């Protein structure tokens, strides 16, 4: 079975800031040769700390940025080589839900217009049909029909995210990019939204590219997880297995730094050796082993500069 979306050795470099006299010009390797595939009806989780290239990956998939190198295949066809019709089809098939529900709805548009916009833009549908479809979407995400004529500021964060989901699904896409869809929400609402997303996936057969730094959420949502660090994928594997037994020292540190689900739970205090995680300063990168072969091979946590208690060294920021 061909994957819905397949990325092969995709890179995205940004030109760094120029010096005062136009001299040294660094390159920021936001995404540095990553490959992944998302199967139909499955969720690929992407985790990593801030600035590791997760969001750039999302933008590349959404076509908001063009990759510097590598290919992205949608249903086996290269995105770069698509003709106008193919591009339109891709636009319709791939939608997104972003992090901040307060910024992702135009404050001047009624909810009906927000949800119907992708439909009106991409297809010629009679106004009645648009309205019917829009109400259907509201119902699908669990909002009352009277929401349609209200403005975004009349809703809470969780409700807005439901609206954003309704908008993303109005075109019946195949793949939805979820870029930190619950990070900005109240903890009590997160589970509701995540369960809604899972339910919708089961019902509509959607594929998700789920990006987050909340490991519990990613483990809960995903079938497969990739761990990104400074633009590279350092570990990948089946979600439950990876969450239960991370192999790569960075993944271990990442999981260890997350808040435990119970306050009494003890966790190993994993401290990584090395400098700051600035993508521009590659010289100061943490000396970590490169990507592991998926789920086999020796435990390498004692590898070069691996996980060890060293008080003087940098700790990972709390995630």
């Amino acid at each position, binding site marked *: 079975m061909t994957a819905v979306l397949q990325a092969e050795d995709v890179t995205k470099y940004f030109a760094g800031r120029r010096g005062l006299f136009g001299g040294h010009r660094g390159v920021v390797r936001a995404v540095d040769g990553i490959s992944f595939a998302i199967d139909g009806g499955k969720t690929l989780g992407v985790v990593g700390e801030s600035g590791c290239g997760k969001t750039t990956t999302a933008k590349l998939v959404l076509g908001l940025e063009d990759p510097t190198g590598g290919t992205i295949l949608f249903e086996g066809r290269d995105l770069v080589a698509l003709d106008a019709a193919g591009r339109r089809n891709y636009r319709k098939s791939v*939608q997104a839900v972003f992090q901040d529900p307060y910024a992702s709805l*135009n404050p001047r548009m009624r909810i009906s217009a927000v949800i119907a916009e992708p439909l009106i833009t991409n297809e010629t549908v009679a106004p009645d049909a648009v309205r019917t479809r829009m109400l259907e979407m509201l119902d699908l995400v669990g909002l009352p029909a009277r929401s349609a004529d209200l403005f975004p500021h009349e809703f809470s964060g969780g409700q807005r995210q439901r609206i954003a989901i309704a908008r993303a699904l109005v075109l019946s896409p195949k793949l939805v990019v979820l870029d930190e869809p619950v990070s900005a929400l109240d903890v009590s609402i997160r589970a509701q939204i995540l369960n809604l997303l899972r339910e919708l996936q089961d019902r509509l057969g959607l594929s998700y590219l789920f990006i987050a730094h909340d490991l519990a959420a990613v483990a809960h949502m995903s079938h497969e997880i990739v761990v990104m660090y400074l633009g590279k994928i350092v570990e990948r594997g089946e979600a439950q297995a990876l969450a239960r037994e991370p192999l790569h020292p960075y993944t271990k540190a990442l999981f260890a730094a997350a808040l435990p689900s119970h306050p009494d739970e003890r966790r190993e205090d994993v401290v990584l050796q090395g400098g700051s995680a600035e993508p521009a300063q590659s010289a100061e990168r943490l000396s970590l082993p490169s990507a592991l072969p998926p789920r086999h091979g020796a435990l390498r946590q004692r590898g070069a500069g691996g996980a060890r208690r060293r008080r003087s060294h940098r700790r990972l920021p709390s995630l």
Partner: protein
Amino acid sequence: MTVITPPETATLAAATASRSTAFWRLKGFPLIPVTILLFIAFVAVFADVLAPYDPQIGSLARRFKPPVWQEGGSWAYLLGTDHVGRDVLSRLIFGARVSMIVGLTAVLVAGVIGTLLGILSGYLGGWADQVVMRVTDTWLALPALTFAIFLAAIVGPSELNIILILGLVYWTRYARVIRGEVLSLKQREFVRLAIVAGCSKRVIMWRHILPNVINSAIVLATLMLGVVIVTEASLSFLGVGVPPPKPAWGLMMADGKKGLMVGYWWLTVFPGICIMLMVLSANLLGDWLRVKLDPQLRQL
């Protein structure tokens, strides 16, 4: 003994109060400036009914009559007459019409040009942005009044030309502010989502950017109204504005300035007060709107 209101009742009362608070009872609403502006607008609209005389026809037999309360004044000419015997009050009333028409349309012309170019420049970026911003820089480096006089000298004075000139001189102020707004708006996620939904640039600018910068444009318009009216009066005063015998306030001051030395003060003071009141009112209203509608503009 103090009576403690139960909290639910208190919030309920507060909610009811806030709902019944009408627009004009809002805190700090500039009631007097708005009244003045509305009065001037009313006078401008009904000038034909309100003015006791034709503002352009006078009689030399009754020139330089002082206002009614001064010796030699009469109830027939409340605010006196000018050097050709025209009624000052009637001229002020028709002058309000000129000021209103020129002020509002010039602000509109400047606003439309500036807002459109600001949106194009901010959203498209690249060379379009470079061109618009360099032109804006150049424009802002020119002294506005001198530039307006220069343009008026080329195209010749007429009411329509004055409107176009003022629009051309002042659009850059809008372009600057609107561009800044657009730069921050286009980073917002709803604009990205519109791209993902397949909206064209034109649609995004029209549907997503424009409605969100309209508030700023309105605030700017109110603040610009005062500037534009003063410039119009200055141009008329200098003889390159509204051509005589049309009764513009600036023109009336220019006509009366020779009389100032020999005691005909009413010829300059009354139009001066009118200009001052209108500009002051527009600015006070603009200040209030700025705080009310657009917190980002507060430090402007």
